[in-house]
């Protein structure tokens, strides 16, 4: 199995994906969309151990910082600096932390609603692996604050179809804000 190259998608965030497009409504498209919806339900419901079961062992998740530039200079993503850069061990630790009595950043937990949409699915050079680009709109209600914290991003995922079901092999979170409006990212994106 090819190791996941975590940095290959971010610079190309605005370009057309290389593989063949899979049309809306195709069987594999529905399976991928179903996977992303189920994932959002698990996270919103705080079922972190179950969510870990959706991750490939070689999963890599990153989120480059973004700056506000003039249009001709591109989309502002910077590969040098990141908001997060987690492999399965890091994600597992962060998930297991949620079950301790001292994950104060998320305990009491936020009420979170992840809206996942606009899925664009493409084949990749690796059989059984698909580039799944989707939009994430996350609403976070924290404590007794009546305003929501909002987070929006495009996610470029590599989803892998295996005998044990679909797995998330790579995720690059392409955030829309240059300055995040969230006090922390103590949640999974």
């Amino acid at each position, binding site marked *: 199995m090819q190791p996941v190259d975590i940095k290959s998608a971010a610079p190309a965030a605005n370009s057309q994906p290389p593989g063949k497009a899979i049309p809306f409504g195709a069987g594999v498209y529905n399976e991928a969309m179903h996977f992303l919806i189920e994932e959002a339900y698990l996270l919103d419901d705080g079922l972190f151990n179950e969510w870990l079961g959706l991750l490939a062992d070689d999963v890599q998740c990153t*989120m480059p*910082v973004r*700056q*506000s*530039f*003039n249009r001709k*200079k591109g989309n*502002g993503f*910077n*590969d*040098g*600096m*990141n*908001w*997060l*850069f*987690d*492999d399965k*061990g*890091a994600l*597992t*630790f*962060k998930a*297991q*932390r949620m079950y*301790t009595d*001292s*994950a*104060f*950043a*998320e305990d009491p937990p936020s009420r979170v609603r992840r809206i996942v949409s606009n899925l664009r699915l493409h084949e990749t050079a690796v059989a059984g692996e698909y580039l799944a680009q989707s939009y994430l709109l996350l609403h976070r209600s924290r404590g007794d604050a009546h305003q929501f914290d909002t987070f929006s991003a495009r996610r470029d995922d590599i989803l892998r179809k295996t005998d044990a079901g679909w797995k998330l092999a790579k995720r690059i979170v392409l955030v829309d804000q*240059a*300055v*995040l*409006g*969230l*006090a*922390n*990212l*103590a949640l999974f994106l």
Partner: protein
Amino acid sequence: MTNENDLKRGRTALVDGTSISSLVDRDKREVSTRLFSDPEIYQLELERIFAKNWIIVGHESEISEVGDFVTRRLGDDPVIVARRRDGGIDCMLNVCSHRGALVCREEAGNSSVFRCIYHGWIFNLDGSFRGAPFKEEMYPDGMDASRLGLRKARVGVYGGIIFANWDESAPSLEDYLGDYKYYLNLIFNKVPNGMEVLGPPQRFVINANWKTASEQFGGDAYHAGQLHRSLGALTGGSPTNPRDWQLHAPKVSTENGHNIICFDLGDMYRAISGGKELSPIEKLHILPPSGVPPEMLPEMLQLLGEKELEFLATTPPGNGGIFPNAGVWNMHNPMYNGVPAPFLSFRTYLPLGPDKFEFCMWVLVAKGASEEYRDLMRRSTSFMQGASGFIEGDDAEVWPGQTSASRGYIGRQGTLKYWTLTGEHKPEGWPGEGNVHAGFSRDDPQWNWWQRYFDRLEEKV
């Protein structure tokens, strides 16, 4: 026209009659909670703290080429920090002298001039006025260019970090940092070519007063074993063992309110070596200081003296605050797999009103570090620090609570307590300057921070 500063100078009381000096009890060592949300105090801070001290605005590696610039905030004011043609650095108000529009709206870039989009007035890299469209037709009597440049702050660089100061009469940056320079050198000047940032900083906004984070970085080791208890799951740390939380580590406070905690690496090295005593050089080979990849260690060993190398191998400067609103964090912590990983960042807590600040964090490595090492720093730093760092995520849960709780009529009558001091105990052979507080970690550096804060707020210095 009356200068706003002239009206305020000499003010010793708030509009409700409360004297500024009564907000602190220097004998009992208590500080009023009102400071965490009062809008009037915030305005005084912009004048007396942020316009009069050396404030961090970036790192020189962000603007390494002539014409490179970044836009930042200095206090609550937008500024451009740019590399001049002669290699020097300028920091200037990012506000057009014509009608007050933002001159530069990009976060970073390279340019030969700055042109305001509103009417097209142009400024040179050093902020001086260069020209305006239809100059002859618009201003037939001429323009006094000497009055039209962008307002400039003084700039100083130490350890690659760019500081700026609006106050022409303030002491130099070198004097401002004073004894603290020794410790900064061992973090940022430990390799011959210095450090560079991995990229632009993480920037995120927290609904809290800037001082909640700043005074915590002023030396609050005490909170770690409680607030960051989940770290114990990684290290096997016990909430009741002070050594597991470095509460025995010496702290240093220096004049002007700076401080650093010097972490004791003894337990970590003993765990690695299985109890065998190691020489300082052996220790540094096992775990080179944060930001220095193993292949660059020889450069560091050649640059630093024996005393400094021993210091780095035993109690290196780790975590501390640069007055008023910045912090450095330089240490190893175990990753989820138990393997100690290096972290190195500096950060500023930028005021955005009495109840809001921007957390701005840069991550550094030695100039020329390999991509593999940079990846290690990217992983380890974001795992622990900044917005997604599981340590600082918990801090960001506390600061907004301190802020909102201080708004209430009763809540703002409370005090923060700094009752307990370790005193000055400098271990024998300690190579650095400053007041060294060896012993159980108490409130010394934070109290030092508050004293400098009030010296400024009361205009005693």
